[in-house]
């Protein structure tokens, strides 16, 4: 809870910092703010609190999820280097502030105890992201992406809200536990059909936000059009928060109708895995590939939600952590490589831009390779254990239920190797420019950190997993 309050205040403070002449102070200040919020967040470890008359609930699970969100935000902000230097971002303070505000929304989504709170959190997050997507003011594609995201996002929000209303109509409450006891307690009149429809509407809204197929159509265009930094932010923070919320909602309130949403989710999972992975193969831009890869990872995470075993939360946590770290690294390298040789003023994000990267900057190539290997789920990286834990939940649930999903997931992770390795092949095996790429110390530090984390978690997953 302290983290939510402190981040709100820091965001406002950040806006005021924007009045200062020197913009140098902005980046360190924002990093400091996030670090403080992170520390404040940890203070509540092993305590359970309920706030605002049952609106928010914090416990260790909340702290774990919000720590991952804050960590990814920290990493994203740390790689935001071009702010303040180029014309387009003449108001960097605003963007930092909006990022902090959107994290507040994400944290609410993690800790909600009431559907209204979930809605508010989701909206804070989404509205901030609409703005960030369009922050590259002069780029047509950025604007298009923002508008597209806004229109489709609003539509999804509308359906989501409609779902909440229907559930309220059926149960007479917005409170998660109250809904839960209605659903599993089995009212004498039987469960109202309104609840089923409401649940499906809520699911559609949530699945839209985490970009699961068939609600994913906005994802590639929006991810592609948004400035790469915010693409990294969107594809990690939103996903972590979205899955935390989805899992919480489904397990606390709707365990009683598991038979219904399990079927919906497995169908969506299979579709998401197929669409995300197979479409990713055909991309010629690394950025779009990463966008589709983010769709496919939503599919893997959905497996753990659909399996709903006691191990599911820790599987989702570990997977989100591994995925976020690797994705941020991937995007960080992409930002640097793409801006080396712009084509018609736009960064060159094609695979060819990565040719010969190992010679131009070994560190970049290595951290990129590690992050791709981790995303592909190959052993000795964090991503492998992420897949391991996720697949474990499904196997635990039983082969009769999840066997089909597992086979698809396994096949699709082979497809994943194909497109992730194309980047590695380009950077290590092909020849391209030989002009070295320079990196700033902070950037270098972040890359070393994320790479070390990915390998460290791959060797000793238990270190983190004990906390989950």
């Amino acid at each position, binding site marked *: 809870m302290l983290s939510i309050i402190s981040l709100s205040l820091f965001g406002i403070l950040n806006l005021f910092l924007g009045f200062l002449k020197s913009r140098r102070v902005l980046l360190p200040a924002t990093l400091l703010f996030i670090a403080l919020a992170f520390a404040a967040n940890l203070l509540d470890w092993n305590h359970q609190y309920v706030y605002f008359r049952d609106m928010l609930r914090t416990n260790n699970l909340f702290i774990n999820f919000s720590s991952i969100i804050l960590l990814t935000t920290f990493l994203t902000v740390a790689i935001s280097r071009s702010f303040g230097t180029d014309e387009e971002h003449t108001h960097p303070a605003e963007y930092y502030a909006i990022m902090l505000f959107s994290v507040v929304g994400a944290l609410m989504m993690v800790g909600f105890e009431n559907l209204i709170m979930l809605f508010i959190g989701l909206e804070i997050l989404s509205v901030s992201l609409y703005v960030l997507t369009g922050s590259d003011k002069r780029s047509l594609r950025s604007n298009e992406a923002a508008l597209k995201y806004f229109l489709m996002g609003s539509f999804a929000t509308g359906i989501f809200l409609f779902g909440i209303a229907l559930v309220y109509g059926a149960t007479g409450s917005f409170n998660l536990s109250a809904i839960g006891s209605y659903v599993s307690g089995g009212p004498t009149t039987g469960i109202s059909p309104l609840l089923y429809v409401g649940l499906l509407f809520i699911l559609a809204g949530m699945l839209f936000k985490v970009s699961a197929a068939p609600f994913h159509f906005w994802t590639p265009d929006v991810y592609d059009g948004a400035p790469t930094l915010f693409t990294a932010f969107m594809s990690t923070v939103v996903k972590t928060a979205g899955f935390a919320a989805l899992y919480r909602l489904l397990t606390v309130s709707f365990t009683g109708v598991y038979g219904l949403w399990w079927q919906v989710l497995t169908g969506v999972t299979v579709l998401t895995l197929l669409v995300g992975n197979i479409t990713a193969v055909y991309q010629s831009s690394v950025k779009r590939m990463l966008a589709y890869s983010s769709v496919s990872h939503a599919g893997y995470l959905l497996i753990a939600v659909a399996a709903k075993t006691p191990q599911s939360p820790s599987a989702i946590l570990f997977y989100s952590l591994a995925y976020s770290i690797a994705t941020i690294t991937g995007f960080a390298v992409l930002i640097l490589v793409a801006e080396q040789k712009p084509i018609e003023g736009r960064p060159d994000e094609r695979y060819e831009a990565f040719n010969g990267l190992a010679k131009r900057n070994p560190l970049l190539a290595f951290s990129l390779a590690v992050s791709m290997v981790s995303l592909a789920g190959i*052993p*000795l990286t964090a991503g492998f254990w992420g897949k391991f834990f996720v697949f474990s939940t499904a*196997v635990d649930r039983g082969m009769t239920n999840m066997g089909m999903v597992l*086979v698809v997931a396994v096949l699709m992770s*082979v497809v994943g190797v*194909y497109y992730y390795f194309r980047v590695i092949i380009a950077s290590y*095996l092909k020849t391209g420019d030989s002009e070295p790429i320079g990196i700033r110390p902070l950037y270098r530090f972040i890359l070393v950190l994320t790479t070390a984390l990915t390998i460290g978690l791959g060797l000793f997953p*238990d270190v983190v*997993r004990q906390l989950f």
Partner: protein
Amino acid sequence: MLTLILILLPLVAGLVVLGLQGRVIKRVALLAALIELALAVYIFYAFRPDASSQFSLRYDWIGSLGISFSIGIDGISLLLVVLSTLLVPLIILSTFNHSYRNPSVFYALILAMQSALVGVFTAKDAFLFYLFFEAALIPVYFIAALWGGENRIRVTFKFFIYTFFGSIFMFLGLVYLYFQTPGGHTSDLAAFYALQLSAEQQNYLFWALFVAFAIKMPVFPFHTWQPDTYVESPTPATMLLAGIMLKMGTYGLIRIVLPIVPLGVERWGTTALVLSVIGIVYGSIIAIQQRDMKRLIAYSSFAHVGLMAAGILSQTLDGLQGSLIQMLTHGINVVGLFFIVDIIFSRTNSRELDRLGGITQNTPNLTVYFIILMLGSVALPLTNGFVGEFLLLRGVYEYNTWLGAVAGLTIILSAVYLLRMVQKSMFGVRTALTEHVTDLNLSEKLVLLPLAIMVFAIGLNPNAFLRLTEPAVAQLLQSMVK
């Protein structure tokens, strides 16, 4: 503790090599590999010939999941540890006449590969096994993809995806088995052996596990990655692939498939055996038609490994013992043959049988070694190949007469393609290419001499190895009956 040193030593040496420059790199790499060999030889002599797992070590790795870092050496492991530690120094020595770009990375990758291979052969925990199994893939992929021939990127990529495809199904199978273990779950292989699985479960598991190893070996029809990869890879990578890595597949069959899913083997073993036997004949026939020497040996390796797989799947003592001794033998012979092709290629710039010939006049030493290794592969009595093939064929024959008869064709067919290769490349009329071929130099002799000695040593005294593996194999077959 010794086992752990055996795994870590090459890895550490690899990291050291990474920081070195110049000529010293090769020497340090060779030195490390020789120390490793000395350790393995010590273990070989200190090993008590019974079925127990010795030099064991166990740390909790992921305690909360019951996954442990558990390693040890029994007779079956020992043979393969000896094989990998024997071959790696020779492979490193075989590169002394070459200069590769970025030598530090090259040798570091070879050593890392050795570390992973020894890990595979000594792991006693299913997930540890899987981890090493996958980890072995990465160094060899990069060796092949960075230093390989023209089509290397496409070919090695296919190889990588293909083998990854196989192992991920094994992974799924292992996760499933893990959840079948009682209580808080453990991935100890011993616990997997003790599982009582229904026949239906075992049928599925058999394929999930078998496909991974079948691709690695490769067994027909999963072999399409192999010839191209062998040909496009630089010779040291080919030697690693054919000499040692291929044995990960056969080892996996023995260590994982047979004891964990005996009922699955009973149900599907014949199908898999037929596939293996098809591979023997099919590989041999293609080998006969090859013009490129490297490709010819690649197909011969495919044919030979089919026989090893058939022997294992026959589930007889002779079949298993034969396949174990054949793993060792095949590693030695195939590395030697690939090296000789490399020597000829380095002098004539050609591997085409049609363009070679008449080399013998200039090169008595090369000829002798070539013929020794060729005869070993053909399985002439008193050479190493004979022992293995004899036992293997007996095993397959015992399982099914007809299959044994078809598999027996390997004796004739391998003689055809190997003799044809030697005849066309070494004898006959000199060509423009072969006019100035020089004989072996010192480092080449140093590689071929130990291999030739091993050809006869195993051929004359196979019992030195067979007696080590027999108790472990007997125990394994015993456990399958239950």
